[in-house]
């Protein structure tokens, strides 16, 4: 399972993840308070510059991630041309692109392990209340490990279907797919329990 962190090392990779996340929160709130077109043009230009600093392939990866927003750009653009308020439309489009772009930038420059450390830190008050966060940490690891496993099993199911039918695989494969996930859950919980379960994790 490959995370969306950019393989291109930037200076921001070394900054504390918590600081980047807090900064992103503040900047996003400011973006949504401001209405001036010039502010949003400047913010968007700054974001593009940040993407361009680590080099061309980083910029291209960033722009690719923003591409999914094109239907909204088109719809909002056409709508505001029809009601004749192009400036408002431009502000909305720029604000959306800047907000998503900056958030993606934090994801691209923060390693998964650093993000998990922030999650662990955020769960500190829960531990103080006596809740056991090993459950959460185990669950995160399980999803990361088993999403590709389930994905491979699902792909095998669709291939098995294709080998036997001229029609495309339909919703029918979702039932065996769900049963596979339920079986895996059974086996993993047995395996965890055989190794002492969550009680064995207390000491470590």
């Amino acid at each position, binding site marked *: 399972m490959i995370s969306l962190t950019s393989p291109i090392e930037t200076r921001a990779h070394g900054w504390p993840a918590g600081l980047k996340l807090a900064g992103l929160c503040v900047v996003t709130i400011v973006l949504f308070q401001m209405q001036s077109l010039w502010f949003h043009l400047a913010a968007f230009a700054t974001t593009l510059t940040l993407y361009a600093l680590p080099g061309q392939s980083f910029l291209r990866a960033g722009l690719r*991630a923003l591409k999914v927003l094109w239907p*909204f750009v088109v719809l909002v653009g056409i709508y505001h041309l029809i009601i004749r308020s192009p400036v408002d439309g431009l502000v909305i489009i720029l604000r959306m692109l800047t907000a998503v772009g900056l958030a993606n930038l934090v994801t691209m420059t923060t390693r998964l392990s650093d993000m998990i450390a922030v999650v662990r830190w955020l769960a500190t008050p829960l531990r103080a209340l006596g809740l056991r966060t090993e459950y959460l940490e185990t669950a995160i690891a399980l*999803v*990361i490990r088993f999403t590709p*496993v*389930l994905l491979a099993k699902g792909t095998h199911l669709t291939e098995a279907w294709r080998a036997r039918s001229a029609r495309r695989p339909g919703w029918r494969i979702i039932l065996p*797919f769900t049963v596979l996930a339920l079986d895996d*859950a059974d086996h*993993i*919980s047995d395996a965890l329990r055989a190794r002492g379960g969550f009680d064995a994790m207390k000491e470590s």
Partner: protein
Amino acid sequence: MEKNVTLIALFAALIAALGLIPKIDLFFGVPITAQSLGIMLCGTILGAKRGALAVLLFLLLVAIGLPLLAGGRGGLGVFASPTVGFLIGFPIAAFVTGLITEKWRTGPVWLSAGVAAVVGGIIVLYGFGIPGMAIMLDKTLVESTALVTAFIPGDVIKAALAGMLTAALVKVRPASVLSRAEA
């Protein structure tokens, strides 16, 4: 406890896998992603609490940067995009779907699970998704509703499928359908 954690984790992985396997024909040859079907199944199969936790775990992993949303999207950007309301609505949709499936036991399973999926996976989900879009795009509620109505027929089909799949699972593996297990 181990069993609950692995079930929640595996269903979070199932939601991701349903959004990532090559698109499947759900109806009349229209390939659509099955991710929102995964949200509904979390509720109808795992029940309210475990279902909502599985969806929350899925969203947490998306937020920390894993490309688990349909089409391989993920990261913090999706929480700043116009569709953020739907993401916020996901766990609540699974919870409501699960709650209705758990409480309404008089009728056949396909009916109560199907209705639960319509109420949770469509009414509740759009109840969060539409205002979210209105705020992010600075539009009225009516305007943002118009933007998303095209997706409702597909979701009605997915809700019907969630009902049928849950009923089929009750038949083959009754012990696995925790929303209907005797407390």
